């Protein structure tokens, strides 16, 4: 029946593209999570009145984050072509999409991390200090656990945006469902291929949102 509704869909290719999309999303989500956390923590800790208060460092990180957050993703990919070529050695394939995906989404996530950290009650940080906690202890045992629900819901939103970004990256040769929908579907006027790719992307997004919600609810003991 599926073949009747989607006569032009080659299922093995569709599966291959799905795996590529999942791979690009997965790797970039993990890298974004780590990079975003580091940037977000730096933004938070160097802000006024905080442990590492430093207006200069804060301004620099903040500017970098804002610049990369404002460039439209499709333009960012193009701008990053020389950089990608120099570190990945190619402009084709799913690995070539990773630098742009990570650089495009880490600043976005960093801001969400910063907002999550700012919502922690200042009194809790003061309490940890009054117990003689080191800054590293405050980061690992207070800041990260206390903001975890916000960090998880933030990475869920970012992951969903990344699925969209992988599709865009696909259009300029990075593989995955976006690439398939564009080349096999749009260019050859095979609407059923475009539709199927869209359905699979929607399913991925729904699953990501569901997982994010479950984890957030489980962690939130407030």
């Amino acid at each position: 029946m599926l073949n009747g509704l989607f006569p032009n869909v080659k299922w093995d290719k569709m599966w291959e593209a799905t795996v590529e999309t999942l791979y690009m999303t997965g790797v970039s989500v993990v890298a974004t999570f780590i990079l975003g956390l580091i940037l977000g923590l730096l933004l938070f800790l160097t802000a006024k009145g905080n442990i590492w208060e430093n207006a200069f460092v804060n301004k620099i990180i903040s500017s970098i984050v804002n610049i990369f957050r404002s460039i439209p993703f499709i333009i960012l990919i193009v701008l990053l072509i020389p950089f990608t070529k120099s570190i990945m050695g190619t402009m084709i394939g799913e690995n070539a999409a990773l630098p742009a995906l990570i650089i495009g989404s880490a600043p976005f996530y960093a801001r969400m991390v910063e907002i999550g950290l700012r919502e922690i009650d200042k009194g809790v940080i003061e309490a940890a200090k009054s117990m003689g906690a080191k800054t590293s202890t405050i980061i690992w045992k207070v800041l990260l656990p206390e903001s975890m629900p916000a960090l998880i819901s933030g990475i869920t939103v970012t992951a969903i945006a990344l699925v969209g970004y992988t599709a865009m990256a696909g259009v300029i040769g990075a593989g995955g469902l976006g690439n398939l929908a564009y080349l096999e579907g749009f260019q050859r006027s095979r609407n059923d291929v475009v539709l199927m790719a869209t359905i699979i992307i929607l399913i991925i997004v729904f699953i990501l949102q569901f997982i994010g919600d479950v984890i957030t609810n489980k962690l939130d003991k407030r």
Partner: protein
Amino acid sequence: MISIKNVKKIYSSKSGNVMAVDNVNIEIKDGEIFGVIGYSGAGKSTLIRMLNGLELPTEGTVTVADKIVSKIKGSELRKARQEISMIFQHFNLLWSRTVRENIAFPLEIAGIGKSQRMKRVDELIKLVGLEGREDSYPSQLSGGQKQRVGIARALANNPKVLLCDEATSALDPQTTDSILELLVDINKRLGLTIVLITHEMHVIRKICHRVAVMEGGKVVELGPVLDVFKNPQEEITKRFVQQVTEPEETKETIEHLLEHIPNGKVIQLGFVGEAAEQPLITNLIRNFNVTVNILQGKISQTQNGSYGTLFIHLDGADDEITKAIDYIHSQQVGVEVMTNA
């Protein structure tokens, strides 16, 4: 145990400098419960935070348990803070941790092994009376229970000093009393020195040995709680003492009486310790030609004795009233003739 010498704290901002703490000198003895009372903005919050180095004095020195807290830094300060615990108005528990894990937190900071940590946590849970709630999260506890977790957490590393930052201000009166009783119990059992700041005279009366009254960054009055109750010097101290001895309704009753009874005088008597045990009223009626009408009375317990106030209405000839008042004076009872302000 604690010595605050010539301490000043100046906050500079664009709109000018603010003197939060102005030349404060306080010595606190080992095992004492010392209270600092003042309205918000009096500088008491800044003062207590200088005792564990959360704030640094602009001038002067703060010494706690033989360590110059205002001077030491880094790991030395962190080590000292394990001996100077603090509890907070809003408890400041980690919501992501259970009661047990919250109490274990300072032990983790001190680098104590897991089995020993668990043993100590169980002791502390018993000490503060939280058996059965070990695995609850803070959001599942009442305010009083949360403060008990705060106290257990503060006691985990066997501190020498406990700082209480408005520790009962967010609690209802009944819970406040149970937390205050717990603090007195800890003070007696563990010999812990306690410094607390509050805006409620009730808290001072109930548990403190000595009190400092702060206004505009300065300590305006300092002494044993009973002395301050008996003989408040400053206007602000009188206001705080009234919080306990003279409820709002008394004031209204007296104003009403002063308006409606033109004859005689309304007098406030203050009894301290043994003076309270003499049959003063009986002697008044027997020895002077006056009528005595008792309006309102109250006895307050403090850590170093009891303190009573009694409002009476004296009626009779003017010279008899004057003689009666002189007699009361001679009995070492505080007298204040109320006038309609």
